[in-house]
């Protein structure tokens, strides 16, 4: 029930702030903050409660399962369930949700009620995506988060916002509709095979699909997820949307919306179409590597700070796709780590870009420089997150990228080597941020204020979590261990000799993933 309450609270909070925003501009802020705090606390408590028992479960990785009939004539139910991966991403969602509310506290002065309404409804949509285990419901939430995001970019964005909002919406909607086709196709194939017409994920697992059809259906799902992720030829919406969105919008886009793509691949593409995914793997990894290098190069050549950070996302998401299609536990653990750490590090960079914009009224890094002397606190934190972004040991991103590369090395040596080169590029662009923004000769003589108390709280939370993840990532790894383990077992390693015996922390469980219900 906690799941449905949380979505209800988010949507209700959104409506409440919309209505009360007519009278008071401060009220929506507090309502939004309370709403996300309640959700965050609820999930953190749930996580702590479950943490010790999480790995004792052997056959059932699902912690909560809530089901209610919705459109029975189609076999559609309001079916929510979470396992370790969902739980982790939900905690992340609410964590970033709190930050998003905080960092737009003074940023947004007009139509405050409608702003927080959109913000909370995006979070509701994203939470729904992470919880839904009915494919129709999943698609429903997938689309629900688009409209408020469109408004967020289109109304509160910067100069070129309308174009960016269109592009974002049309890219994601087009790819989403192809996924809808694939979902319906899968529904009918399963229905014909078994006589049970249902959108229930658990029942659709293990549907016997003729290989050539499976490939097309998988592509339908894949296209929606790789546009969201994004993978290189489909990434063009991302720099526009990220750079034009308001700070909280960029934070949510980079931190959460991109993650829904990766989550979709992990949750749906791999388990539903294992053979087809296996066939696609070399290509997907290749595009991942291209994304890593291409994103890094483009990122280096940007002068707009937010665009620069946006392209680093393209590069980092390349690692995600590389790791997912390596199909082994190491890489998959790395992927999950990457999802969390990228959300935190890139989110922090976007928040800082927003703060700089607020103070300097520009995003052009050529107009910055030497800011360290005026804002030593922000300089230090900026340095830290630039280091996190380039994968410095001791910070979360290092663990993630290291695990991904380690895992991918077993799957494809050549591509992994090329991906590793991408790390060098990431060092270059990250150092360039620090160099251009905080170091060098000072461009300005006017007074620029350093962090306010609210900003210190936001950045402290981010800093603590990225350091924590870098030094002690075990809680994250433990939480998703079982899920990743199951996933990796769908794909037996081809070369038995190099099986990952040396990674002792993950017990190899013996059960099959494709258990028929």
């Amino acid at each position, binding site marked *: 029930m906690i799941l449905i309450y949380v979505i209800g609270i988010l949507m209700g909070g959104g409506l409440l702030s919309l209505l009360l925003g007519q009278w008071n501009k401060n009220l929506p802020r507090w309502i939004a903050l309370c709403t996300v705090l309640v959700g965050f606390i609820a999930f953190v408590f749930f996580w702590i409660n479950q943490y010790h028992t999480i790995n004792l479960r052997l056959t059932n990785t699902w912690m909560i399962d809530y089901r209610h*009939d*919705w*459109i*029975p*004539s*189609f076999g559609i139910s309001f079916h929510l369930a979470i396992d370790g991966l969902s739980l982790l991403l939900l905690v992340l969602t609410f964590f970033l949700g709190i930050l998003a509310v905080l960092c737009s506290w003074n940023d947004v002065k007009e*139509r405050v009620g409608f702003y927080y309404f959109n913000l909370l409804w995006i979070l509701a949509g994203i939470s729904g995506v992470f919880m839904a285990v009915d494919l*129709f419901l999943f*698609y*429903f939430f997938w*689309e*629900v988060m*688009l*409209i408020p995001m*469109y*408004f967020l970019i*289109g*109304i509160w964005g910067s100069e070129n916002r*309308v174009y960016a*909002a*269109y592009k974002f*919406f*049309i890219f994601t*909607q*087009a790819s989403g*509709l*192809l996924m*809808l*086709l694939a979902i*319906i*196709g899968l*529904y*009918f194939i399963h229905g014909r095979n078994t006589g049970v017409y249902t959108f229930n994920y658990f029942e659709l697992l293990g549907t016997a699909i003729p290989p050539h059809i499976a490939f097309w259906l998988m592509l339908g799902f894949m296209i929606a997820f790789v546009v969201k992720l994004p993978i290189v030829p489909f990434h063009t919406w991302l720099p526009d949307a990220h750079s034009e969105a308001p700070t909280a919008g960029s934070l949510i886009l980079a931190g959460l919306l991109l993650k829904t793509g990766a989550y979709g691949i992990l949750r749906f593409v791999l388990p539903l179409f294992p053979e087809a995914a296996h066939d696609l793997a070399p290509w997907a990894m290749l595009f991942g590597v291209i994304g890593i290098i291409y994103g890094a190069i483009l990122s280096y050549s940007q002068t707009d700070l937010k665009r620069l950070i946006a392209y680093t996302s393209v590069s980092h998401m390349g690692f995600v796709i590389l790791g997912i299609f390596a199909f082994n536990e190491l890489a998959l653990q790395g992927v999950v780590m990457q999802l969390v750490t990228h959300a935190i590090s890139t989110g922090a960079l976007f928040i800082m870009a927003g703060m700089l914009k607020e103070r300097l009224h520009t995003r052009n890094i050529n107009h910055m420089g030497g800011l360290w002397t005026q804002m030593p606190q922000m300089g230090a934190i900026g340095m830290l997150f630039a280091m996190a972004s380039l994968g410095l040991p001791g910070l979360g991103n290092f663990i993630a990228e290291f695990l991904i590369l380690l895992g991918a090395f077993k799957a494809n040596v050549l591509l992994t080597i090329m991906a590793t080169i991408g790390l060098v590029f990431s060092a270059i662009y990250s150092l360039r941020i620090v160099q251009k923004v905080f170091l060098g000769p000072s461009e300005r003589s006017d007074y620029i204020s350093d962090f306010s108390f609210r900003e210190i709280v936001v950045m402290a939370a981010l800093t603590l979590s990225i350091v924590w993840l870098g030094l002690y990532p075990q809680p994250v790894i433990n939480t998703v261990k079982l899920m990743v383990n199951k996933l990796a077992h769908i794909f037996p390693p081809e070369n038995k000799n190099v099986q990952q015996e040396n990674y002792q922390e993950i017990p190899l469980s013996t059960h099959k993933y494709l258990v028929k219900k």
Partner: protein
Amino acid sequence: MSGNDFFALTPLILLAGSSVLIMLLIAIKLSHRVIQLSSLLLFIVAFSSLIYIQKLLPYHIEPLLVIDGFSVFIMGLIIFSSLVVNILSYIYFEEKEESPKEYYVLLFLCTLGACVLAVSKHFVSLFLGLEILTVGLYALIAYLRVRHHNIEAGIKYLVLAAFSSAFLLFGMALIYLETGSMQFSMIAHSLTSLQSLSPLFLTGLGMMLVGVGFKLAVVPFHMWTADVYEGAPAPVTAFIATASKGGVFAVLFRFFIMIDGFRFKVVMLILICIAIASMIIGNLLAVQQKNVKRILAYSSIAHLGYLLVAFIPGSMMSIKALSFYLMAYFITTLTAFGIVTVLSNKETDAENIESYKALFWERPVLACIFSSALLSLAGIPLTVGFVGKFYILAAGLQSGFWITALILVISSVIGLYYYLRIITTMFAGQKSILPEEERANPVFYMVSIIALSVLSLLIIWFGVYPSGVMGSMEYFKLK
């Protein structure tokens, strides 16, 4: 005719009688307000009479009419949309026209014609219904005599409708020549043994499709649509877009189901081509438009294409998908044109997209209603349009029509662009171009807005919880 026949025909008789009654009321020089209210009342009576005849279903009145679940549903939609059009008409015509009263007589007649289409199972009743509908529409379209566009639209519709009726008649004659009957079931009977159609029958069917295609405004018979939509008074446009198309579509579907035209490859191919062309061209043409009424006109072409996607399989699911989508389309289109009507002023309709600028900040309620309608037309979740589109895709894919489903998806992405453009305009800018004017009839203005709010609530309610309506469609059968 027996008593039961009369009972089954109550809705039609009520509609016909209402038009006479309104004419008498006009004769004794009652005010516009009284006429409008009494016609509203009569529409409600006609609508509720549909509930009373439920227990008779299915009921055949040989050889012309059949009253079954499907036709009652379609009649319900038609009468409902006339009712909404009727509500919206008061403020629209009150300030523009000195003698708006005869309008209501025509509205009843058109509604009657559309309802006859929905229940007919014979070429004669089909043609009668169609002519009652179209002749009424000639006058309705050109009702605002002083506007240039109005006359142009009226003439255009007159010429093309007459032309298409001729095609339809000739097609029927050819089919009659071939099969010796004008009754759908008899035609079906003479076709049962055939594996492929004879050239004569095919020509007849083709000509009928041309005629019906004109009425439905599917590509390549769509040329008149934008001009007529633009020229006609906004409430009349709403009526053309919904009731008149719904009735024609219902009878076309009944005809195809009864003669089982879905097994003939050639016919299917033609229908698939029409569907694909309508979806793509309708959406593409709308992209360039700056006039909201024209955008909605082209979007209605595309929506008829979507309907054909569900039509083509001709399966059990098709009936349900079509019924559901028609309902979604009716509610949504009425809402959209309702907003255009409410925003129109004395001189011009609110058709220029610029006049919607900053609507979100000036009249948030209207803007929200319009957005819900546009999002529903675009097929975004939480709205009834999404469920409808899902239903259509499901109907198409169930029978393996991947091409049409794929085209539907691609073209609806194009469609998204222009719907979003209207929404973007509504929240762009700070000041409205529309001057803030005193409403002559604040009460009726409020009533219209309340009616539109109810419609937009329906859009969201059926989008979130469609199973109730779907359940009532379970038992629709046409054969």
